């Protein structure tokens, strides 16, 4: 009964995408900080159809000890998809893709976290994907950054992430699962909004130099939108309101 993939209209004449959004419109975002009691910091994010939990422990003793660094702390990150997070059961063992995303998220968070304050320790970030839609690495990063702030780990800035991509020869913000599979390019970007620095850029697809620039700028604008939701989540938890 399902629609054949090639039948999906990714972008119609009026500039409306397959899920009804306009070109520069992100999906619905909801973030909640401090949802887990036993973790030092935690966050839950709903980013479109993505549902993701992030928990943070630390700074704490490093085990195994040989991983410890004597002049700074280390950051460890685990991105894991639940077996029920996708249409067909996913084997819960870490896949090649999950290992890669764990590394990518770790490296996107590292510039923000002030690990030099805690030598010989580790900060552990655990991310569980409860339900996956396109762009789960960006959503996971957003949740992880809120969880780190919730844990009280010193950070130079928040890290906000959002993807942009090329669909039907047009650069669009925050691509979803269908656009990811059928589109021409996907570019996740992580950004520190107050310092104005990019901590992650990946690109899957082919873009001209002009398109590349436009795509990065579109994604950065998306990151700034996400940042407002991250701020709101932390303010709601700690100050009981979302106002300034």
């Amino acid at each position, binding site marked *: 009964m399902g629609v054949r993939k090639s039948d999906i209209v990714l972008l119609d004449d009026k500039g409306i995408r397959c899920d009804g959004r306009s070109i520069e419109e992100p999906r619905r975002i909801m973030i909640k900080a401090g949802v887990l009691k036993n973790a030092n*910091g935690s966050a839950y994010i709903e980013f479109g159809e993505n549902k993701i939990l992030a928990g943070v422990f630390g700074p704490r003793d490093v085990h195994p000890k040989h991983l410890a660094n004597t002049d700074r702390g280390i950051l460890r990150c685990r991105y894991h998809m639940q077996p029920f997070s996708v249409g067909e059961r996913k084997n819960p063992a870490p896949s090649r893709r999950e290992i890669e995303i764990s590394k990518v998220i770790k490296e996107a968070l590292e510039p923000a976290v002030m690990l030099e304050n805690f030598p010989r320790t580790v900060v552990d970030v655990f991310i569980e994907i409860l339900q996956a839609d396109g762009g789960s690495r960006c959503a996971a990063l957003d949740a992880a950054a809120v969880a780190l702030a*919730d844990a009280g*780990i010193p*950070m*130079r800035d928040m890290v906000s992430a959002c993807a942009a991509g090329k669909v039907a020869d047009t650069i669009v913000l925050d691509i979803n699962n269908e656009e990811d599979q059928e589109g021409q390019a996907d570019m996740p970007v992580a950004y520190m909004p*107050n310092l104005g620095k990019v901590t992650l850029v990946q690109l899957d697809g082919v873009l001209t130099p002009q398109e590349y620039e436009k795509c990065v700028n579109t994604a950065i604008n998306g990151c700034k939108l996400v940042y407002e939701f991250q701020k709101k989540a932390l303010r709601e938890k700690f100050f009981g309101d979302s106002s300034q």
Partner: protein
Amino acid sequence: MDDIKRKYVIPGDVITTGPYRAEDNVHLFGDKIIATTVGISEIYDSGVRVIPLTGVYVPRIDDFIIGMVKSHTSLSWELDINACYPGILPAQDVFGRDFNPKVDELTSRLKTGDLIAARVANSDRSRDPLITIADRDLGKIDDGELIKISPTKVPRLIGKRGSMIQTIENATKAQITIGQNGYVVVSCEEAEGLLKALDAIKIVEEQAHVPNLTERIQEMLGSSSE
């Protein structure tokens, strides 16, 4: 001088720009002073700092802390001090200068699970914090109930010039020892007073941000004693 500007901040918020001294929990980026943790920023005189609302205990020299003995070697005890590092209590501190590891058995003085009131003698980046009990009012804690609160809530539990803690102590006749690391020991001869004091401490921790908390605690303890 008394003009302190306060603001709620989260990591990355620019507190101010200009010729201020960057103090606790802030970092300098160009001429911007940026918060590094969730908390309340304060601008006073020429300094800027953030009072954190969450986070782990970071040992500082001269802090009064409560530690729990975790293990020992032949020369020192290892303490749980609620920080990301274990506290090291050297045996000389307890046995005196004539300590001899061949003769003196460390477990004869402090066993695993014992609580001690101590001070941080030294804490730097390269070694685990050194703990001492060689001072007045320091040493093994013989009785009492240990309760763990967030280290960021310790100033609230103490209150302005000790007002909060005095309120609880007077109303419950309990003796409360607060470590900067968030470990609190409550001892009381009456079980009822002990339970009330523990409840009051939990409420202070949960509602640390609520204004007029001291009065509310007073009310709670006053009304429940009748």
